[in-house]
């Protein structure tokens, strides 16, 4: 079509309205196209959601409306809906043969402006243009109202088209619209000159690119989700040509999104909490709203989100005052987060985490009598954490964790964590530091470790996240790593740990598996204890990326120390079960190298610990921590159950408290200690 033609058709809005139709069913798509053409719209069709997104991203102004099927093979229709709403802010109509209330409700909560049932009738399609108009008017309104002079603004809004379209087409709707927007008529004259094309808005529509959204999320996180007001966000973002209104409407959408996530994540949160690795997913789900954050953040950013998850998870762990770590844990995680956050060395961080994770693995072996490398790694974690501490604040913010619910915990934690770390570092080359002080830290560090895995996962996440919202979930890598650490902490020898990490993931998993059976034999049933140790160690294995175990090596000694507190106990794992669970986790974690795995590992750890359920929501794998040693390995591998339903019987994920876990762990550790010799 020539420019003139297009313009002409646009003037007669809704004639010529540009619709993008997405449906994987060729018959429905063809029919829809025919119907839309009959309504005189300008139609583009595609059977792939991904193609649709690509088309939309190429040119945000290319379409006025999107109609999408709900069930599609390459991407869920609701997800597409969300993405479009956030990135392009176009009205989206859902289409489905399924008219169940729940599904329709889902469409609404995801932001669809309408929901049509197949087979779609032409009468229904004749009215869909209203959604375009409505959105435009409201957008303009929002943007304008805050401004001092609405009239001027309105003119820009391009109410001209509204005036035209509305007036021309539907008397009723016109009237309504006019009532809403008083100046339409006044402005229409001005508008006419400015913008005759109904489809194009006078006001340059803001396209929320991933980059922009990332900044937005960073700003929101920095301010705190509760305190985030458009004006401040706008200031923080410091983007030209972005108005407060744009930010306001985007914020609104974002809040809805988070709400939805948290609702979903709510029940999973507990599960996730424990598992650091899963944080990304967890975050996603949890109120942390990290998911968004980090998906947009990318790379290092993602870590922070993980951290936040971890924090959450750790926060829960606060239960066990016995360990006295809980306070630390959050910080630990936070720190870890920070660790990662530092974009500067995401790899390093990851590596560290990995290292930490590795020790975990070793531990597993260790308690079998293997080297204590894992311990080292664990300790290293604290070190790492410390480093990250600085970054933490930044990272936290970046990830938005800070702003999220976790933020509350942060203040306390960082200090503690830092403290621990310092202790560790100072006292021991290994990194654990004084036994006594370290002890606590170790426990906390263990906890941290748990986090770490999560954190490490961040890197993974970043990798995976691309720029999709779901990105966070992607990083499952760490899960595997994380497991390793937790288990091995008892016997980790600094040196080994480092080296082992690199190979950890797989090792950890297997080791964990190996361990667990043994452990199971030993103890008898307290899975919990195990998890603690193991979990902690299970550094975000996912991080495979960078086996910088050097840190761990240093910690090696400390790792051993750690032993004293938990490791030995755990390792000996009085209850095979307890160990098993841990092992399982690791196994699962290691196994799960996939994005999902990271999460799962984390989860397991947490679960083992008790109520810390990180359970990355997104983790697809279901870590099932069963008591049965034999099967545990398999179970883990195959499933990371967020629900952690599988938590060993001894360990009642719902019921056991952190204290119980700790106790269990200690018991098991003792046993293990003995067995390990």
């Amino acid at each position: 079509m020539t420019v003139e033609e297009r313009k002409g058709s646009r003037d007669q809005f809704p004639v010529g309205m540009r619709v993008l139709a997405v449906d994987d069913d060729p018959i429905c798509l063809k029919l829809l196209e025919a119907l839309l053409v009959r309504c005189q719209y300008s139609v583009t069709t595609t059977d792939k959601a991904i193609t649709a997104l690509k088309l939309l991203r190429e040119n945000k102004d290319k379409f006025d409306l999107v109609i999408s099927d709900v069930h599609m093979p390459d991407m869920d229709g609701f997800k597409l809906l969300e993405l479009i709403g956030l990135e392009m802010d176009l009205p989206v109509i859902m289409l489905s043969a399924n008219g169940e209330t729940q599904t329709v409700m889902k469409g609404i909560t995801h932001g669809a402006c309408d929901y049509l049932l197949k087979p779609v009738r032409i009468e229904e399609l004749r009215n869909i243009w209203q959604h375009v108009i409505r959105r435009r008017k409201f957008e303009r309104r929002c943007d304008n109202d805050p401004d001092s002079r609405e009239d001027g603004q309105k003119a820009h809004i391009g109410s001209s088209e509204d005036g035209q379209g509305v007036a021309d087409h539907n008397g009723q709707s016109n009237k309504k619209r006019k009532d809403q927007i008083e100046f339409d008529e006044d402005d229409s004259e001005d508008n006419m000159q400015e913008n005759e094309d109904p489809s194009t808005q006078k006001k340059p529509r803001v396209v929320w690119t991933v980059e922009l959204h990332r900044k937005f999320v960073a700003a929101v996180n920095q301010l705190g989700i509760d305190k985030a007001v458009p004006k401040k966000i706008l200031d923080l973002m410091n983007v030209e040509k972005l108005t407060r209104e744009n930010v306001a409407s985007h914020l609104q959408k974002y809040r809805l999104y988070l709400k939805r996530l948290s609702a979903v994540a709510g029940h999973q949160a507990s599960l996730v909490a424990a598992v650091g690795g899963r944080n990304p997913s967890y975050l996603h789900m949890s109120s942390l709203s990290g998911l968004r954050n980090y998906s947009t953040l990318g790379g290092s950013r993602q870590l922070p989100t993980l951290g936040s998850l971890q924090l959450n998870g750790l926060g829960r762990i606060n239960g066990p005052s016995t360990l006295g770590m809980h306070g630390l844990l959050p910080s630990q995680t936070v720190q870890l987060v920070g660790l990662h956050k530092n974009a500067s060395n995401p790899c390093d961080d990851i590596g560290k985490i990995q290292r930490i994770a590795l020790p975990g693995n070793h531990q597993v072996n260790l308690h079998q009598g293997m080297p204590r490398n894992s311990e080292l790694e664990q300790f290293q974690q604290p070190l790492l954490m410390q480093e990250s501490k600085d970054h933490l604040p930044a990272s936290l913010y970046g990830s938005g964790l800070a702003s999220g619910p976790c933020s509350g915990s942060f203040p306390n934690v960082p200090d503690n964590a830092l403290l621990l770390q310092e202790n560790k570092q100072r006292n021991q080359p290994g990194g654990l530091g004084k036994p006594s002080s370290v002890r606590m830290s170790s426990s906390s560090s263990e906890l941290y470790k748990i986090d770490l895995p999560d954190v490490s996962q961040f890197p993974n996440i970043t990798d995976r996240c691309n720029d999709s919202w779901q990105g966070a979930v992607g990083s499952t890598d760490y899960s595997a790593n994380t497991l390793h650490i937790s288990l091995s902490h008892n016997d980790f020898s600094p040196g080994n740990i480092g080296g082992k990490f690199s190979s950890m993931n797989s090792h950890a998993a297997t080791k964990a598996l190996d361990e667990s059976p043994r452990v199971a034999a030993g103890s008898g049933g307290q899975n919990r204890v195990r998890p603690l140790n193991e979990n902690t160690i299970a550094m975000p294995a996912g991080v495979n990326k960078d086996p910088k175990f050097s840190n761990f090596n240093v910690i090696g000694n400390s790792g051993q120390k750690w032993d004293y507190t938990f490791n030995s106990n755990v390792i000996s794992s009085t209850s095979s079960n307890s160990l098993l669970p841990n092992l399982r986790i690791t196994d699962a974690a290691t196994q799960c190298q996939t994005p999902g795995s990271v999460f799962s590992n984390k989860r397991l750890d947490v679960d083992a610990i008790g109520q810390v359920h990180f359970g990355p929501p997104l983790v697809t794998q279901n870590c099932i921590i069963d008591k049965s040693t034999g099967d545990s390995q398999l179970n883990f591998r195959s499933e990371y159950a967020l629900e952690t339903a599988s938590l060993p019987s001894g360990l009642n994920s719902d019921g056991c408290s952190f204290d119980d876990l700790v106790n269990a762990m200690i018991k098991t550790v003792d046993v293990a200690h003995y067995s390990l010799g």
Partner: protein
Amino acid sequence: MSLMALREQLNGLVNSMFLEGLLDDQFEQLQMLQDESSPGFIAELITLFCGDSERILAELTKLLDQAVVDYQKVDAFVHQLKGSSSSVGAQHVKLACVQFRQFCEEHNKEGLKGIYFFRCLRALNVVKHEYYLLRGKFDTMLQLEQRIQAYESKQQI
């Protein structure tokens, strides 16, 4: 056969299909959409529908043939078939799909795998039966259409 006779035959066929319930209002919409600008619209759509349906039916047969049936996939396919059949107005096929889906869901809920498996099998057979019945008539319909259009283009020439 004369053009008129052909047209009569076609109309008769379509009407009988409406009466029997093989086709519903949606088909009327298709008829409405077919006009001078898109004379082959119905033929195209129906051909697409037949091809796609047969593909889905083959998949369903395969799925139900497995040792362990993945009912989620079965449900997904049936859902798709339901969508496309309702889009072309194939009423009986659509209803059979609805029934089938119900069985799939019940199967999941009840857990009485044995019973529901057979019910699903039966439901699939019903769908197949209805589809092939419709398919036969569609074939005839398309043939008539083709001949009519050949006639018309001849006449135009």
